[in-house]
């Protein structure tokens, strides 16, 4: 069906018989103009400030000095830059492959086989989505660390004095980041396997292919575009990730691009904002290129969409005697991905002072940390701040996205610019966006630096692209004829939007709200540089605890917070599943 935007040029010309004049064209409406202006005001300044500080000298008071290319030339001349780049690529690639392998194995087992306990995989993934990044990373650091239970076990088994595993290394980073992304990879891949038409596989087995060759030549081949797109997505996410590079990489001196920025700002004295901004600009360019490639690849996946509609039913593959082996794997994966880190955290939370797993320590277990966390005003404040931040950011993003998403999906005049503006923040790695806003708030001369309000602004800009995609998908599911029917029935554009489109968008919007909420309360790197003393949020508090060595408090607060967030995660998934919305 054609779009119904007017294409006849011409201004308002009076109709004959002295009747009312009708505009012969649908001009750019006021709502679109306002929305574009608002987005410009929110999205453009961070770019400007980042680019400006990367190209200017900064005097000690923080004011801008003369124009200079020195920040960039220093980077390219430094010997460490090469190894930083190599580390970044190795780290992102390794984590993408690991997450993809674990996710795809889980998705195949859960969707296409009759293996035991398949539902366990879903439960585990959903729980893991609610665990804050920092908490998850810390759990692994405690588990795999020098004094951790795994090294202790290996030392007992094989003897020796030096620990066998050094988690503060590139492979440690890859392992933890890969683990972090594997649940999402699973949740995004399971519909791919679920929706693939069994007749393709049946055709292969008729041709004489066995289970493994069918899997290799048909199932995985047909899922390849989706696998490639997802792998690229995790690669991008890992390249811009900050938590693992900061918590795992920095102590072991495995430096990647994102951690360099943090290093320049917090570990150098005085902070080298110019150099950090130059790194930020470099990362922006890399992100822009990667996202372009991703969009190309993602567009390809539609060609392979395999749901045929008629006679479609997924086939469940009988594993036979492999069923028990698969069952063991199904128990093992969630055990590693969720149970081990959670148990480690719980252990840490129950001990007054952290010590490795031992029988002797069991007598010391108690709820002291929980009591302390729940009684402390600052902890309670940070929980409240996080909830307020998440809720406000989600509400603003959802409202903006509903209108913008409708305009973009219905291709009203001006929607291309709207789409571009609302998608632009995607190129910002969170730490770089935080840096850009830090400079904006500091130089803006405003009072909002460090306030909760400023965090809301940062989150809205960071998550508007996700909101837009959600709303757009929601609108696409609404047949345009439903709105045209309202026009025929006598409703104007505004009436049709509020009475028809908006009510039908509600499920997508609820799901969008919960998604943005979850993103906003988990964010560490986005907030790290802009939080102030009065706007401490849980995710950043956990990060600070680790750096201060307050493991008990960290673990206790983490447990409480995980429980709260899990409620929202479950609500999100119920809504998403009920209305068959894509996750992520």
């Amino acid at each position, binding site marked *: 069906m054609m779009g*119904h935007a007017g294409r006849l040029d011409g201004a308002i010309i009076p109709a004959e018989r002295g009747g009312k004049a009708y505009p012969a064209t649908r001009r750019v409406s006021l709502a679109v103009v306002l929305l574009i202006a608002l987005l410009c005001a929110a999205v453009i300044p961070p770019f400007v400030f980042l680019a400006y500080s990367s190209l200017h000298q900064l005097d000690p008071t923080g004011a801008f000095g003369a124009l200079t290319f020195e920040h960039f030339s220093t980077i390219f001349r430094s010997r460490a830059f090469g190894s930083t780049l190599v580390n970044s690529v190795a780290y992102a690639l390794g984590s993408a492959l690991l997450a993809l392998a674990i996710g795809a194995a889980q998705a195949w087992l859960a969707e296409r086989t009759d293996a035991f306990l398949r539902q366990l995989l879903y439960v585990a993934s959903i729980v893991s989505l609610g665990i804050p990044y920092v908490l998850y990373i810390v759990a692994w650091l405690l588990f795999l660390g020098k004094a951790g239970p795994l090294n202790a076990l290996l030392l007992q088994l094989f003897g020796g004095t030096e620990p066998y595993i050094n988690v503060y290394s590139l492979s440690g980073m890859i392992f933890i980041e890969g683990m972090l992304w594997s649940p999402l990879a699973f949740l995004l891949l399971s519909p791919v396997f679920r929706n693939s038409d069994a007749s393709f596989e049946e055709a292969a087995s008729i041709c004489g292919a066995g289970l493994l060759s069918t899997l290799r030549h048909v199932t995985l081949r047909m899922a390849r575009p989706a696998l490639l797109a997802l792998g690229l997505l995790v690669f991008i996410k890992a390249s811009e990730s900050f938590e693992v590079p900061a918590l795992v990489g920095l102590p072991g001196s495995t430096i990647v691009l994102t951690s360099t920025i943090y290093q320049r700002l917090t570990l150098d004295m005085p902070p080298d904002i110019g150099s950090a901004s130059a790194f930020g600009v470099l990362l922006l360019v890399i992100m822009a290129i990667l996202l372009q490639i991703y969009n190309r690849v993602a567009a390809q996946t539609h060609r392979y969409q395999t749901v045929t509609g008629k006679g479609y039913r997924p086939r469940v593959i009988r594993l036979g005697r492999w069923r028990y082996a698969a069952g063991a794997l199904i128990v093992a994966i969630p055990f590693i991905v969720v149970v081990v880190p959670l148990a480690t955290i719980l252990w840490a939370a129950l001990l007054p002072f952290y010590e490795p797993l031992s029988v002797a320590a069991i007598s010391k277990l108690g709820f002291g940390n929980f009591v302390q966390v729940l009684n402390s005003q600052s902890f309670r404040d940070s929980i409240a701040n996080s909830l307020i931040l998440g809720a406000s950011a989600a509400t603003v993003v959802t409202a903006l996205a509903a209108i913008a998403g409708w305009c973009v999906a219905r291709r009203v005049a001006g929607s291309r610019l709207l789409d571009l503006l609302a998608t632009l923040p995607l190129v910002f790695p969170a730490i770089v966006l935080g840096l850009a806003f830090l400079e904006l708030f500091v130089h803006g001369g405003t009072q909002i630096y460090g306030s909760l309000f400023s965090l809301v602004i940062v989150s809205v800009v960071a998550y508007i692209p996700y909101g837009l995609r959600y709303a757009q998908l929601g609108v696409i599911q609404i047949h345009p*004829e439903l709105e*045209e029917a309202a026009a025929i*029935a006598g*409703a104007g554009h505004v009436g049709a939007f509020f009475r028809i489109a908006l009510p039908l968008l509600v499920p997508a919007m609820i799901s969008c709200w919960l998604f943005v909420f979850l993103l906003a309360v988990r964010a560490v790197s986005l907030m790290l540089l802009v939080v102030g003393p009065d706007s401490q949020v849980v995710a950043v508090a956990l990060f600070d605890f680790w750096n201060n060595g307050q493991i008990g408090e960290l673990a206790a607060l983490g447990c409480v917070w995980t429980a709260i967030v899990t409620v929202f995660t479950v609500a999100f998934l119920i809504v998403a599943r009920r209305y068959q919305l894509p996750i992520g």
Partner: protein
Amino acid sequence: MLQVESLTKVYSPRENGGGIRNIGFQVTAGEFYTLLGPSGCGKTTTLRAVAGLEVPTAGRMTLEGRTIFDSGKGIFMPANQRRLGMVFQSYAVWPHMTVFENTAFPLRMLRGKRWSELDIRQRVMRTLETMGLASFASRSAAQLSGGQQQRLSLARALVAEPRLLLLDEPLSNLDALLREQMRSELRRLQKEVGITTVYVTHDQSEALALSDRIAVMHDGRIAQIGTPHQIYLQPDNAFVATFVGRSNLLRGRLLGRDMQDAGVRIATDLGTVLCKSLNSAAASSPGAALIRPEHVVLTAIDGSGGSEINRFRGRVSQVAFLGEATECVVQIGKVDILVRSLAGQYDGSELVDVFFPPERTLAIAVD
């Protein structure tokens, strides 16, 4: 009632859709008017332009004497002010409203006159009763079956007594049995209400059964306008002849007017065929002789043996027994002729005589 003059809609190459060129037609009050054509012929674009959902590139449209579109004067009345009723292909029943609220919506949107809740209630219930949906009034529209949604869509289109009812392939989403039911119901309803209707379909049997008049469209233009009889029995050109109903088309060239039979002779692959010529345009440059399968007369071979005009000898090559009739393909030389006969049983490979009655054989233009 509705007057459409040289309506044109050009799409930019980006949008792949059939544009329309120079469409003109008139619909008189109370008429059931059908736009018939294959997909991509521009019939839906035309309907949407009448509805106001599409802004045409050029042309003029008046509804009840009032201009609703005029590219020259820059007039475009938006859809929501045209006071029309429309049934969409997808029905476009609003799933978040009840059956009652769906139907009441156009009344609540009426300008000028503010309806009381009581009046709305009465009017809606009356309309729903006509459609046999009264007992579903408080049900959510999402719970209705396909046929019920279709009737709800029609109720919504009719409730505010629109000036014009537009139907965009309303039967195409129904299964075969329901489609026939709805077809006769639609016709009965339209006559009862007496509402002027523009109907869009690609199904020629629907068009023939329902319409007062049909405009056959092809490639963004109107190929022929006429009553169902005219369209079927006197097609203007090869496109209409082959699109509406099945036909045997024998291409050839004009030999000349036949004074005795008041027809024209066309030289075809079979030999000379004597045809009736309906209009002067076709008579001046006929490209083909057309005969419908049911008008071909099939007889056992006799002594006269092909000497008579329009009589040819051939061999039955395929036979299909359809119950109410038998269809055969008769091979005459290299030409296959489709014959539909009510009586007679034929075996394969039988020799037969085929006769084209000249008064049933038409000379038509080929594009």
